[in-house]
């Protein structure tokens, strides 16, 4: 049974359950289900129980934020000071960051309880989570199915109620698609809305962190906690939203003009199409104006994504050389050979494929580079 953040927050405040008890309940569920689901790749139970104790103290004092004491999970590419962060890649096995990502710092200030880091495609490159060096997570709704990806573990832990919510990252669908596969809510905020400081980079002009939750309201609650400009990420923006996103969900849709892009319906599964059409009718009945629009450039979105993401990845992943952190090959005759062997042994096939494509994009026309 999946539980909403607001319900858990209410139970914590009514003293029906303490944050420590709630955390222990989640730990019990993880110990039972995770060996099968493989949704978590690093567990942080000691840190979680410490945070839960502190959360109980804050709850007792009475001015705790909504997310205080709520157990959650982070994707394995979001840096956590002193705790394993490996992008599910052999090349980063054993890596412990020395600082916190801004989103994690913000959630910690809210009293969040981190249960562990979730499985993902290696360096977020993929859409099934099968390129993880720890093996793929399984879809809790049907273990014969994939979870989607790359934030497959983050979607699976929310789906199986092994965390009340999680954070993922989305470069070309990596939050939204696994959320859809696992039947949970996934939200990729507008680029710049959330700081990526401490998110291990893949395609920097597309990467964005966002929540995976059991309800739209929960996604808004988590977004409100992590949003905002950050000096440490020059692409992030302080924007005045007027109110919190969670509050704005309670307003009605009367008078809103909502565009529906025709292209979104090309080749869509009929069952999904009829569900979306039902939703459109519901919004229309409540007073919104629906307008059909065209997005002719949409057909170029995927090839454009592929070119930009791979070009940026080939540059971003240049830092993995086995010298300062992560995996290093065991035998070599020169520094050059050490770097080449480390990278060739440490990266999986899909990562290498994208690095090569990116190198092609960036060096095309400069054969003598």
């Amino acid at each position, binding site marked *: 049974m999946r539980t909403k953040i607001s319900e858990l927050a209410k139970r914590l405040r009514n003293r029906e359950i303490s944050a420590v008890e709630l955390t222990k309940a989640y730990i019990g569920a993880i110990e039972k289900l995770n060996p099968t689901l493989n949704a978590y790749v690093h567990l942080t139970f000691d840190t979680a129980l410490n945070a839960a104790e502190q959360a109980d103290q804050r709850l007792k004092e009475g001015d705790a934020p909504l997310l205080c004491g709520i157990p959650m999970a982070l994707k394995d590419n979001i840096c956590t000071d002193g705790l394993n962060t490996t992008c599910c890649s052999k090349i980063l096995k*054993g*890596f*412990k960051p*020395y*600082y916190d990502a801004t989103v994690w710092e913000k959630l910690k200030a809210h009293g969040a309880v981190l249960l562990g880091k979730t499985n993902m495609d290696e360096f977020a490159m993929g859409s099934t989570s099968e390129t993880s060096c720890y093996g793929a997570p399984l879809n809790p709704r049907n273990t014969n199915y994939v979870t989607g990806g790359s934030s497959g573990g983050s979607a699976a832990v929310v789906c199986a109620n092994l965390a009340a919510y999680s954070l993922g990252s989305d470069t070309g669908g990596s939050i939204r698609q696994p959320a859809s596969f696992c039947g949970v809510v996934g939200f990729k905020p507008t*680029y*710049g809305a959330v700081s990526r400081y401490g998110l291990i980079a893949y395609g920097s002009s597309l990467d964005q962190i966002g929540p995976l939750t059991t309800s739209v309201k929960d996604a808004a609650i988590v977004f409100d906690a992590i949003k905002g400009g950050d000096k440490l990420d*020059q*692409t992030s*923006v302080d924007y005045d939203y007027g109110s919190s996103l969670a509050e704005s969900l309670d307003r009605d849709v009367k008078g809103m003009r909502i565009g529906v892009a025709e292209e979104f319906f090309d080749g869509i599964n009929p069952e999904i199409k009829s569900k979306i059409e039902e939703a459109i009718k519901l919004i229309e009945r409540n007073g919104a104006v629906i307008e059909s629009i*065209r997005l*002719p*450039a949409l*057909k*170029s979105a*995927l*090839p*454009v994504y*592929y*070119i930009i993401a791979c070009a940026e990845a*080939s540059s971003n992943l*240049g830092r993995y*050389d*086995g*010298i*300062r*952190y*992560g995996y*290093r090959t065991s*035998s*070599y*005759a*020169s*520094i050059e050979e*050490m*770097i*080449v*062997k480390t*990278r*060739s042994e440490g*990266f999986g096939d899909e990562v*290498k*494929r994208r*690095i*090569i*494509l990116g*190198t*092609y994009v960036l*060096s095309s026309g400069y*054969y003598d*580079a």
Partner: protein
Amino acid sequence: MSISKTEIEKLAKLAKLSFSDEELERFTAEFDEIIAFADTINQSIEGGTEEIRNVGARMVSFDDLRADEVMPSLPNEKILSNVEGYNGFFSVERSKK
């Protein structure tokens, strides 16, 4: 558009990667498909692209830059804690002459 095995080898060298012959064959074959897919970008977009604008650009002026002052930074020992076999130096195997 097609790409040769030699070109892939050249790209691998630039990217500091090495491939076995079997991997090289496989990558070369896959590459043609990927390039063909990326090439669809050249197909003209109905209605043109004049309306596609960059909405994210932000100008940074010199006034926005902070003063050049020493700020707190991370302790060296913490940053170096992930280095394999660190003992005051980055140790690597002795290179053969």
